[in-house]
């Protein structure tokens, strides 16, 4: 609906919120999305639902790949016209509100939603499509159990009959979460992380996997659905048998999986898969991920990994030994305050090279690396850590707030 069709209260609320967001940006306090959104919601608690009314909305959620997939889906949609999107990863309620208030009133919105926010976002935004990427252990100090997310998603999607879900068929938690949705497009992503889905989310009994990657509960009827789109190596195979080559600027399996999810989401919104994939292929780096920064003559490629599943993938992307690596670990609230997950990550794969451990919890990592038999040193500060490698070309992998710190500090170095 045009902005003028919004109730006076919502118009006033968004005006005030965007003014505050602009002020926050000018003061250098950040993007302003969070504070602006909070002001809007304080003035008009129903603003989210009203800002969304009449708009085509796509939501993207999951443990890993949200920001990248949101960017890819937006790029696929942009082949057809303008979109509104929270590309900076402001994925909580306040960020969603600011994004919608800032953007053109009629443009479709492609929004990343935090896993915990998704049920509320589904209920208030009435999305046309919801992409469910994956669910695995992350920030366990905050939510307690990963299954609670799956349960809440399932209930929210059951109550949203107009929504089509695009869901990862290779993640049993996601399949169960999408199980009561009216329309589902299943995507075979070839996900390899299974540590969080050994027991069935539906009945608690054991899930069995075959060598071909299919899975089924040994007790109830939960099983891998037949996907309409399947990632097969560098190709995506469609239901009609067509095989399309992925041409991406972003590296690795996780980004190929994100790309297929995004193309499937765009198709639900009326974008042909071929066009969608062309848009997806234009995405180069997303909020600093995979960006190369120069630090005193050294080229440092930045990789983000937030949890064991993400790290398992990041370790595959890190260039081979003997190239040294800097690994940064924090455990602030957005990271989860408990870094025990370091022991779920196969850091043994970094043997044969020097690893510099840094970040608030670099000492936890140092102990982990000691037991992994990896040569390492703890160095405080990201620029100092990069220098300590003594190399000209390195990868720096870090978890969420450590990644942000590294980006900020290395930009100044």
């Amino acid at each position: 609906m045009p902005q003028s069709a919004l109730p006076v209260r919502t118009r006033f609320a968004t005006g005030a919120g965007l003014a505050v967001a602009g002020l926050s940006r000018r003061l250098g306090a950040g993007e302003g999305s969070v504070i602006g959104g909070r002001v809007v919601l304080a003035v008009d608690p129903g603003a989210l639902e009203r800002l969304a009314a009449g708009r085509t909305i796509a939501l993207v959620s999951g443990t890993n790949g949200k920001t990248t997939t949101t960017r890819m889906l937006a790029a696929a949609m942009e082949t057809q016209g303008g979109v509104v999107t929270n590309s900076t990863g402001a994925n909580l309620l306040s960020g969603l509100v600011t994004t919608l208030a800032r953007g053109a009133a009629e443009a479709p919105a492609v929004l990343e939603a935090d896993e915990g926010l998704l049920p509320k976002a589904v209920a208030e935004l009435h999305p046309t499509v919801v992409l469910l990427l994956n669910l695995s252990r992350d920030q366990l100090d905050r939510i307690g159990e990963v299954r609670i997310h799956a349960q809440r998603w399932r209930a929210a999607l059951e109550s949203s009959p107009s929504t089509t879900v695009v869901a990862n068929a290779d993640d049993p938690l996601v399949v169960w979460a999408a199980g009561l949705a009216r329309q589902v497009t299943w995507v075979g992503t070839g996900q390899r992380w299974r540590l969080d889905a050994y027991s069935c989310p539906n009945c608690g009994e054991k899930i069995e996997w075959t060598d071909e990657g299919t899975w089924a509960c040994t007790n109830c009827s939960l099983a891998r659905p037949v996907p309409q789109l399947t990632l097969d190596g560098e190709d995506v195979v469609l239901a009609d048998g067509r095989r399309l080559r992925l041409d991406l600027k972003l590296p690795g399996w996780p980004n190929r999986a994100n790309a297929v999810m995004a193309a499937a989401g765009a198709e639900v919104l009326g974008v042909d898969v071929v066009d969608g994939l062309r848009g997806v292929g234009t995405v180069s780096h997303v909020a600093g991920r995979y960006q190369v920064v120069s630090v005193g003559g050294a080229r440092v490629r930045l990789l983000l990994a937030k949890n064991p599943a993400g790290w398992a993938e990041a370790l595959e992307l890190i260039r081979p030994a003997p190239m040294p690596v800097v690994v940064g670990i924090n455990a602030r609230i957005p990271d989860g305050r408990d870094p025990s997950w370091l022991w779920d990550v196969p850091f043994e794969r970094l043997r044969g090279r020097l690893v510099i451990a840094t970040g608030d919890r670099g000492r936890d990592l140092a102990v982990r690396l000691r037991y992994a038999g990896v040569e390492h040193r703890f160095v405080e500060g990201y620029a100092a850590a990069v220098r300590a490698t003594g190399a000209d070309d390195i990868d720096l992998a870090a978890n969420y707030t450590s990644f942000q710190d590294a980006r900020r500090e290395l930009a100044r170095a």
Partner: protein
Amino acid sequence: MPESTLTIALLYPELLGTYGDGGNATVLAERLRWRGVDADVLTLGAGDTVPTSCDIYLMGGGEDGPQALAARELSESGALHTAVDNGAVVFGTCAGIQVLGHEFANPDGSSHPGLGLLDVRTVRGTGRRAIGELLAEPMVDGLPTLTGFENHGAVTHLGPGVKPLGRVVHGVGNGGGDGSEGAVSGHILATYMHGPALARNPALADLLLSWVVGDMKPLDDSEVDELRAERLRFVKRGRWRRNR
């Protein structure tokens, strides 16, 4: 030393290893190898036959559904009971302490039978979930301050058949109002600390190992000492802030 190679059984890490507890097996095995003792880690999944001949059995923290599945498999096979009768060492964290006891709580609050290897009973807590740094003064000789991270909603009550592992200085621990943390009985030791517990508390790791191999030469744990000092400082700083 009973055998030339020690075997450490990691029980159902896919069911019980939610918080990196598999790391405890790595820590035990490496600390043996660094001292020239061969060690194997045997990872046992749901449905696998649990051997009765291992030297040390580890059970980690888990989510409610998988935890009940693990308790059922172990009580049907009786393998852990036989191993304990033969003198094996058992170390349980979080869900581990719950499964080792007489009973624990299902998600709906009803009671699920445990293995009865520890004289403890676990019920659903009524307050907030216990999440955060856990610090305890040990009640077992020869251990320094114990440090870890806890994350549990349940409350464990100790019976007369066990001693507490420690007295809570910071955090919640067993949560039954007696200020206790963990439980020890014979060669069965359980705690609410993960982190994992044995990485942060190498003396605790060595205590478990000494139950199998006897006295051992000390290792250079200076890197862990730095981590422990940092964690202890962090907790003290937080307490000071809260007390103001």
